[in-house]
């Protein structure tokens, strides 16, 4: 390690003020601090500091994302082979394992590379301009963004979305720690509103349109996601054949059965389909205390309550879907574990987190069912709650302030 450190030290002068490469100081600094925690000793205040820093914290989130990433990669291959009838849903899942992983990797890796490349590029630019060091925030955002993209999303669209999100949602507000909206969701929302046609159509399963044109598509495959199918039932009678056809897909043996939805063997954004893989990540986040269990559990409760209320109402076929099925579908779980818990854009008071999470989950299911034009209600709900979070915190803190004022008045009453 000494050798590596000596090497870094030897090239250091080039990057320092007056050196040939001083413009790239940020790059050097971030690489050096990545490899070696600097030997900065404490100065004022505490003489000893906890071992944890932002790098470790963010890294834990990345580790928590790995199950969803690996499963998502495999699932994209799986869905592709299913869609062209190469395999059937009854085949063992391990069939053609390497084919699936290869197909998935070929699609997923470029998305990850583009996300990190564009995002970190902009971060370096801003850090250089402002003369501060790189914040670790984008390490997580950069992984989240590809995981909430459809598999065939054109790379240029991803690049554009990343640029928009990093600049408008984050850097404009002052960088990591200052943003109001979740960066990754802003990227997704940008695509949703800027390119609605591309996003709603034929990019959820790899090559689905080409397969259809070539007449290869297996029975039942249209390329639509679970939420897309369900959205098509809204506004139609419960007994219409089109509706019963869709609902049968959600039955015990259907394509979107509860177990398929939970395991994630359905089409959807890369990382969002498997509730199981996401919950493994959630366990790590809760275990290490990095993701707020309060937000996750209240978010889940909110979703279940809304789903259950819909079950009671039962006004359309969408509403009759069991609440538990609702929360394992679409982006609900992914949003709950990785988006709603973003500490910067979530509520920051402990009590506020309960309220924030509950309404996040509640609204996710509500938007999804009420407004079929927004099949992915989770994104809208979390972004909305991001905006509301400071307000929630404000009222939580007001209670505390009020208590203190009351106490002061009572004390004056005693002395007066």
């Amino acid at each position: 390690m000494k050798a590596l450190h000596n090497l870094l030290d030897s090239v250091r002068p080039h990057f320092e003020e007056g050196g040939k490469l001083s413009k790239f100081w940020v790059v050097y600094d971030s690489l050096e601090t990545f490899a070696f925690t600097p030997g900065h000793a404490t100065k004022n205040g505490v003489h000893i500091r906890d071992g944890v820093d932002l790098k470790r914290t963010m890294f834990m989130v990345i580790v928590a994302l790995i199950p969803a990433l690996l499963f998502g990669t495999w699932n994209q291959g799986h869905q592709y082979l299913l869609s062209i009838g190469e395999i059937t849903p009854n085949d063992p899942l391990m069939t053609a394992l390497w084919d699936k992983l290869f197909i998935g990797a070929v699609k997923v890796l470029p998305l990850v590379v583009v996300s990190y490349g564009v995002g970190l590029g902009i971060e370096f630019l801003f850090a250089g301009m402002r003369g501060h060091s790189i914040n670790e925030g984008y390490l997580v955002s950069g992984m989240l963004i590809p995981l909430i993209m459809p598999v065939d999303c054109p790379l240029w669209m991803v690049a554009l979305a990343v640029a928009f999100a990093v600049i408008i949602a984050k850097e404009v507000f002052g960088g990591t720690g200052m943003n109001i909206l979740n960066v990754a969701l802003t990227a997704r929302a940008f695509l949703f509103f800027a390119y609605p046609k591309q996003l709603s159509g034929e990019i959820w399963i790899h090559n689905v349109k080409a397969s259809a044109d070539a007449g290869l598509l297996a029975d039942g495959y249209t390329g639509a996601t679970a939420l897309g199918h369900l959205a098509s039932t809204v506004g139609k009678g419960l007994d219409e054949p089109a509706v019963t056809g869709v609902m049968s897909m959600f039955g015990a043996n259907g394509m979107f059965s509860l177990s398929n939805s939970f395991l994630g063997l359905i089409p959807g954004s890369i990382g969002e389909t498997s509730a199981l893989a996401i919950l493994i990540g959630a366990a790590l986040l809760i275990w290490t205390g990095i993701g707020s269990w309060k937000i996750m559990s209240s978010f889940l409760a909110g979703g279940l309550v809304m789903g259950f209320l819909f079950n009671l109402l039962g006004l359309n076929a969408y509403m009759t879907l069991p609440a538990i099925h609702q929360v394992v579908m679409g982006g609900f779980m992914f949003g709950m574990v990785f988006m709603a818990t973003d500490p910067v854009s979530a509520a920051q008071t402990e009590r506020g987190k309960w309220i924030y999470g509950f309404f996040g989950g509640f609204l996710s299911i509500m938007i999804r069912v009420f407004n079929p034009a927004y099949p992915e209600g989770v994104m809208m709900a979390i972004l909305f709650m991001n905006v509301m979070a400071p307000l929630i915190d404000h009222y939580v803190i007001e209670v505390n302030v009020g208590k203190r004022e009351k106490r002061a008045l009572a004390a004056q009453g005693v002395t007066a």
Partner: protein
Amino acid sequence: MTRTIRIKKGADIRLKGRPSTQVEQASSAPLYAVQPPNYQGIVPKLEVKEGATVKAGSTLFHSKEHPEVKFLSPVSGTVKQVVRGEKRRILAVVVEADGKNELHAFASVDPVATDREALVAAVAERGFFAFIEQRPFATAANPTDVPRSIHVSGFDSAPLAADMEVALAGREAAFQTGIHALRVLAGGSNVQLGTKAVQTFFNAIEGVDTFTFEGPHPTGNAGVQIHHTRPINKGEVVWTMHAEDVANLGETLSSGTYCATRVVAVAGSECDAPRHLQTTLGCAISTLVGSVNEEEVRIVSGNPLTGDRTANDGFLGGMHHQVCLLPEGNKPKFLLVDGWLGLGFDKFSLSKSYPTWLMPKSKEFAMDTCNNGEERAFVVTGQYEPVFPFDIYPVQLLKSIIANDIDAMEKLGIYEVAPEDFALCEYACTSKIAVQSIVRNGLDMLKKELG
């Protein structure tokens, strides 16, 4: 009247090198110093010049704002040097001890038989207002105030702290006299004492409201104890005093000679024999710890969370009752070995991303002074609250201070806190924010604003 209060929030940082309960006499130091920056908010006016001869108890300087508040020489000898810093600010008045131990004679005072005004004057003249702090603002007490109450914490919960039972052993009478004096200063009664259940020293002490506390650090902080018994409201003033200083006050009042005894815990992983040493206020650090290699070892006067860094030629701080020797953490740490991705079995962390919480509670850690990361914006939330036992929102209060929002600071409860109450927040901070110095700025700003 005893009430037990259980405090759950907080954390005991399990550092290696806790002091044994043995008390040894430290060798007498050649040099002693009284350091004005140790006394928050005091602007010193010198009463002696370099070369002057002083007795133990002679005034070295007084407070510019309240000239009756005196700061006394702990030993007899000659004023060797007045150390000045930037803008000629006085950093220390150094006295070279002559070993004769000549004592300045004060009148002997019975606090019970003295009215408040006379006692305030007597305490100030005997140099003991220096050791009384006040809240709000966490500064030296203003002798013209009449405090709502005076709070004495009977134990120190900080890492490696001195054991108050050990430090005070045999001084019951002096402590009792000190408490009587505080009762008069507080207007007749209203003296509170916070103790631990295991302590016996305070059992026979009369004239105080005693509260028993259970819980991790910072339960021993006066601020925490006040908050959980009689929280401070806007407009109220509460004084606090260290228990050892209460005993010294009692002894000084009854004997008529200045008592500046200190029993200091000398501890830390770099300390060969962690123990208690009996010495005198302001002694040269070297008589406590010998000479260390400053490149490798940091000398901290005070506790590892709030103390002052000092050097081989430094002195024991005026408000300090412990000295710690910690390994310097000034070397880069490679990410996989001992850096941010390391397993970290040797690191004490409050974060569960390190395995500390899986290890036996008896394991102790040798923490070095490395920052363990770089400073960042506030990102992680819910991290300060578990180690901050106040019904106050710490992050929001800090942000209001950063934003210079005096109104918000008041509303969020800044009157109740001192920087030391935030020390664990600063320790735990993922973003390595200088929390205590932010709080200090806020308190100073508020004091200036309110005049």
